[in-house]
């Protein structure tokens, strides 16, 4: 029996997550017994699960003999675990609003959240969901909201920086795993943002208070109670303020890629490309797929429509934002857009460098879609074709890839200001390098352009 304790589940003594032969389970400690019973008996669990706000679970027999165990539960499996530094603005915003919404609901049932971190939220069927069943505790009237600081540093600070300073500052959450310090946030925020009451109260004045008050006596605590109305007002103030935040609009090269900047494709070649992708996804029926360099998710949608759970990656946060917003508008369920630069995917971070695992260690797709991608990796970023073939072979069984030759106008553009040092970048070298690891099942030169589509199958086991 192989039991692995999850390396990120150690801070809260209420329980921990572990895996037993690929099944994810959660131990509930006797320490948390009363709160778990209240969560169930109050009707809060049922209400949240019914509204798809909290991950459902079933109670399973305890055959593990962990000390101090009250129960073992089996939560519904999340297809892919992602982290806040991999989310676009609206994903983080929706996760923040969900957290506050759950706090409001919990109060109605006599409970309160004891932590409020984006790491407790995951995406399931396109929507954020709370995955930490042990986040609730009995509400004690008079007590301020314990996770207020955590919420402001882990949700509000990055959201405000993305909205007012620069959308790429969301990546600061990777550096500051416990939350972005409020004094740093204040330094980075521009003056106009400081007129927003949300920023002024919850980040600036809050930050000043953190600096000015370092001690509190027991008497001070008891003399000043924090009423239920005050707590509700605090949550409302955060909720309404965050609802009004929007990402700083940036038009990047990628956001209108297909419409504005793409002389390489005619309508016909785009249709051919889509048909090729759909045909080989239907034939091979991969269990899940990763679309690398997905832009706004045009091709990910083909996979998703065919019932394939799809990760849709792009290194442009604005493109990821558009992808996510469309998913929300259309109620699409099979796509998870993530803000990932495949040249520098998220590393393992946190305690012992294992608390939050690296992106590539979590990436185990059955199939990879690499369309209009390899010229950016090989030419813009000098990654040799042999490295690319090796990379794809490590991560998928099925590869649908587009080769873009030097004669293509897009590649010409990449080469216009630099010396062409890429003597091996041609169709023959591409096929030679990839044939070391893959068997080509189908090859289709797109008409009206010089690009070639390939469907390849890994020769070995991944």
């Amino acid at each position: 029996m192989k039991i692995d304790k999850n390396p990120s589940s150690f801070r809260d003594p209420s329980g921990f997550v572990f895996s037993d032969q690929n099944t994810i389970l959660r131990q509930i400690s006797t320490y948390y017994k009363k709160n778990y019973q209240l969560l169930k008996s109050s009707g809060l669990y049922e209400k949240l699960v019914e509204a798809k706000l909290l991950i459902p679970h079933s109670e399973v027999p305890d055959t593990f003999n962990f000390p101090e165990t009250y129960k073992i539960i089996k939560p519904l499996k999340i297809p892919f675990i992602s982290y806040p530094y991999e989310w676009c603005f609206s994903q983080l915003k929706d996760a923040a609003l969900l957290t506050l919404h759950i706090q409001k609901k919990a109060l109605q049932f006599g409970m309160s959240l004891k932590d409020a971190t984006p790491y407790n939220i995951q995406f399931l069927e396109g929507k954020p969901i709370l995955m930490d069943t042990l986040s609730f505790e009995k509400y004690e009237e008079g007590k301020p909201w314990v996770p207020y600081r955590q919420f402001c540093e882990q949700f509000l600070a990055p959201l405000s920086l993305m909205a007012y300073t620069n959308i790429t500052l969301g990546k600061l959450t990777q550096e500051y795993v416990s939350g972005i310090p409020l004094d740093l946030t204040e330094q980075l925020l521009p003056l106009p943002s400081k007129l927003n009451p949300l920023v002024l109260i919850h980040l600036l004045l809050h930050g000043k208070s953190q600096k000015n008050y370092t001690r509190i006596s027991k008497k001070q605590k008891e003399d000043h109670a924090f009423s239920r109305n005050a707590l509700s007002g605090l949550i409302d103030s955060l909720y309404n303020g965050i609802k009004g935040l929007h990402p700083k609009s940036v038009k990047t090269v990628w956001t209108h890629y297909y419409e504005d900047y793409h002389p390489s494709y005619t309508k016909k070649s785009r249709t051919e490309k889509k048909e090729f992708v759909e045909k080989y996804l239907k034939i091979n029926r991969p269990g899940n797929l990763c679309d690398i360099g997905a832009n706004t998710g045009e091709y990910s949608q083909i996979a998703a429509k065919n019932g394939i759970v799809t990760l849709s990656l792009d290194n442009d946060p604005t493109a990821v934002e558009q992808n996510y917003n469309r998913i929300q508008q259309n109620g699409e369920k099979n796509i998870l857009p993530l803000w990932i630069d495949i040249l520098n995917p998220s590393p393992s971070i946190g305690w012992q460098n294992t608390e939050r695992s690296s992106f590539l260690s979590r990436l185990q797709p059955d199939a990879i879609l690499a369309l209009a991608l390899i010229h950016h990796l090989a030419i813009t970023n000098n990654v040799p074709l042999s490295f690319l073939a090796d990379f794809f072979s490590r991560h998928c069984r099925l590869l649908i890839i587009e080769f873009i030759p030097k004669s293509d106008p897009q590649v010409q553009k990449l080469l216009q200001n630099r010396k062409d040092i890429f003597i091996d970048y041609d169709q023959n070298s591409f096929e030679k390098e990839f044939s070391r690891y893959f068997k080509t099942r189908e090859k289709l030169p797109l008409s009206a352009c010089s690009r070639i589509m390939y469907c390849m199958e890994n020769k070995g086991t991944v």
Partner: protein
Amino acid sequence: MIQKITDSRILKLILFGILIYFFSLPKHAHAYLDPGTGSYIFQIILAGLFGSIFFLKSGIKKIKGLFKDKSVEKETDEDR
């Protein structure tokens, strides 16, 4: 002898005092998270503001609710 009795009384009193102290401490049985002193005090300072805004808003909502046609009320995202 008298000295011994006094000592044991003092000891009992101290023990009693310690017990009272522990039982009177606020119960943070599950607060594994440090709320941060500044963040804790900040909420207390603004309690009046948040409390009164919420009180006013709920009052307005209730008054508005009196005039709303209940038959057309639908569950909104907020009510989920």
